[in-house]
């Protein structure tokens, strides 16, 4: 199911949303470089109106972890 988080990742990483899973990471997604990693943070913060702590950002190495970070902030998708 393509939720708002997957859509956000798809827009920033310029990939088909259907290709993204919770296991998507810089290791298996070629367009997820350091520049895009920064853009992902900004996009998530603006789309979900949250502020991500530096520690969260540094450990957000997969889409699944991003989902978990948002859940801990009370945003369930």
């Amino acid at each position, binding site marked *: 199911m393509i939720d708002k988080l997957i859509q956000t990742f798809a*827009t*920033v990483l*310029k990939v088909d949303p259907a290709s993204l899973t919770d296991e998507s990471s810089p290791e298996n997604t070629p367009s997820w470089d*350091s*520049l895009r990693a*920064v*853009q992902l*943070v*900004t*996009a998530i913060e*603006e*789309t979900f109106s949250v502020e991500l702590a*530096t520690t969260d*950002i*540094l450990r957000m190495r997969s889409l699944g972890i991003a989902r978990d970070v948002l859940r801990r902030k009370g945003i369930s998708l």
Partner: protein
Amino acid sequence: MLKAFEEMVREAREAVTPLAARTIWSASSPQLEQHSGGLVRVALCGTFTTQPLEPYLGMELLCHEMAASIHHAPYNQIHSELLSPTSTLRSDPVPEVVVVLWRMEELLSEALALLTTDPESAREAAKRELNEFLQALKIFLDASDVSVIVCNPMRPDVRPLGLLDAVLDQGIAALHADVLTHWRRALAAEPRIHLLDLDGAQRDFGARPAANPKMWLLAKIPWSEPFSQQVGKQIARIIKALKTPARKVLVMDCDNVLWGGVVGEDGALGVELGEDAPGNAYLQLQRYALALRERGILLALVSKNDEADVWQVFDKNPRMILKREHIAAAQINWMAKSVNLRQIAKDLNLGSESFVLIDDSAAECAEVCANAPEVLTIHLVGDPAHSVRLIEESCAFDQLTLTREDTQRAEMYAQERRREALRTGVKTMEEYLAGLGLVVRIARLSEEDVSRVTQLGNKTNQFNTTTPRRSEAEVRGLWQDPAWHLFTLSVTDRFGDYGLTGIAYCVDRQEAWEIDTLLLSCRVLGRGVETALLAVLLEQARVRGKERICGRYIPTAKNTLAAPYFPSHGFVEREGFFVRSTSAPLSMPSHITLDLDHLNKS
């Protein structure tokens, strides 16, 4: 799916939020690379990460109907990018505009380290670091034909002295203020560099919302997304001013713009004007209009009224700040404003694409937008207290240089009206010309002239034989080329100084001189100046041993005035050129005095 350029422009104008701007840019920018209408290549070079600026700069340029390709120089390598002949700024595809961004924290680190213990040495170190930076910029400019935009620094956010920081020499605020002044003066002396006022942008936006401490630590991104958007817009504003001719005329509606109320109903003394509210809002606008006039913007009136009523206010209302003599042209009648604007364009001999209209009526603004879309229309909506800000926010009169011609423009138009008065008073053209006392000064182009001749060259359309458009950098290149001979022409008469009104660029072609560029301002036509210029060029070619002088006429939609120029002076058409032998001189008109004192200096 390929989008039409017009659609991308429309989307750009609707994408207001940072998120929308980034999303649309991400989709549009790859398609822009294929844009057939020409790309503006911009390179961003900074002491910090510049990538966040790209979508906002790109989208704002799209709003101005420019397709941009934006490149980022390697992170924090501004000196090597400027100095190395193989840097990305000098490699293909070469950028047209280079934007260099810096902060005090990176560039003036030595000065900041010394500041608390030795504020004087800190300032010496800052001057050294800034001069080194300026030298690198100059070396880069000498080696490339690009436009360079450099920022001034923002005040650093972290100031350990706290309350004392704004007072003591050891304070960061004081050092920042001194750096701003030093940098402004250094750049004012370097016309090839355009200043991006980051300091002002940060002040307008607010330092706290502009900063992004978390992203700085993570990725060396100093700014929040909304502030990056502002900076991108400011950079686009400068690029637009680089590539679009400045507007020159403010056309003003009268009722509820220059005064409160309607003069046809309230009478010349009954309109709202005074030092108290609400009348003082209109005086504020009048003062602003006068200030614009002082920097070279002409003032005109377009109003749906009986003409006499409007002039009554100017003549009889003691509160008026604007006077008749400040108005360069007026069309006060009951016709459509778009028609009147075109008439004012004829009267002033300026294109209506250089006009800005201010009007409180949405209907009038819509009429002009529809029928004269080349005019920039500013609808003065809401409280008149905000009118001046609306005009400023339009950035309509942005210019990158201010020349003597600019500051004297309004006065020169007034002089011309006085000449007209003489002409209607005399009987023959000969009498008129003799009475003018014309002095034509033809001189070698000097370095100080480059800015003015570039402006003149790019805005003169009618008496222009070949209509080449050149940037300041290109003109400077010709000036340095020994095969090229560049001349300026200025005219005075007994009514005043017409200023710089002509240019002629000739190039050596073995036994001939080719007049590559020749143009004259319409102000000085019909007085024999055209003949005087050719006579001098002919003689100049002859003394250099050239047998012939030749020129071309390239017709455009606007320059039919120049079509008979060469033929009427004895030039014969041959293989696409008009050619004349230099051995038979052209006779000078008798009513013109030549000033050639600066003809052979360089």
